[in-house]
């Protein structure tokens, strides 16, 4: 079996990122939009680790550590916002959220 190069990881990461971006653009359920954002972050993380391995440098892994931390904070705040929106509008369909004031 032949060895895999960095190019394969770039392509795989791009495909995962595009699927996440399509989820953000197309789905109406706000929770699934959030899941798609998580997938985009994960695609970026995968590429960070792949380049860390490729270049023999540990800094990429440290950066992924920070990205995971920020993503955890972002999910907590985002889901709290979704719960708050659901309380006022009784729906999390993002096509119905067209007012700044509830």
């Amino acid at each position, binding site marked *: 079996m032949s060895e895999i190069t960095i190019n394969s990881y770039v392509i795989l990461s791009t495909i995962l990122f595009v699927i996440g971006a399509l989820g953000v653009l197309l789905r109406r359920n706000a929770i699934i939009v959030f899941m798609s954002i998580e997938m985009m972050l994960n695609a970026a993380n995968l590429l960070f680790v792949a380049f860390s391995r490729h270049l*023999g440098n540990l800094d990429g*892994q440290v950066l992924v550590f920070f990205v995971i931390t920020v*993503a955890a904070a972002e999910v907590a705040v985002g889901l709290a916002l979704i719960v708050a929106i659901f309380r006022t509008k009784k729906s999390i369909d993002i096509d119905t959220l067209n007012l700044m004031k509830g």
Partner: protein
Amino acid sequence: MGNSFVFMLLAVIAVGSAIGMLVSRDAVHSALFLVLNFITIAVFYVVLNAPFLAMVQVTVYAGAIMVLFMFVIMLLGAERLRGMWGDRPSELVFAAFLGFLLVVTFLIALVMEGKTAVSANMIDSSPVALGLRLFEGYVFPFEVVGILLLSAMVGVVILTISNKRGKNV
């Protein structure tokens, strides 16, 4: 950077679970597909000489974050919405076209690059080495992330607390 058979198998599972998340009608199914995707990426981390990050990926992402998602889905009872996609089908076609264009652009860039660079040798990436690197060069970002987590926690409590007593979800 890994055996090509292992890579292809994992890549098929990762892309398949990502597409499953995108097209599932039920939000719970989407969440479970996303757990599968996260675990596949954790296996990629093991292949790529990052065992500590693989463990963090499983515990933090596939564990904590997805439990939070499942909890909110079931709390709100918002598994299914009436319409799954946006109102205009032209949006779907246009977004899919743009995504396809991005992948093709990367492919063209990689083909024009031509040469495949040789990877560096395996380095020590044990938790000890990672921790030393973190505290040698990244002490200030580490502190900033701590403050960020604290402020996020305070913000979440303020957002979800009910200002009228006795009136909850």
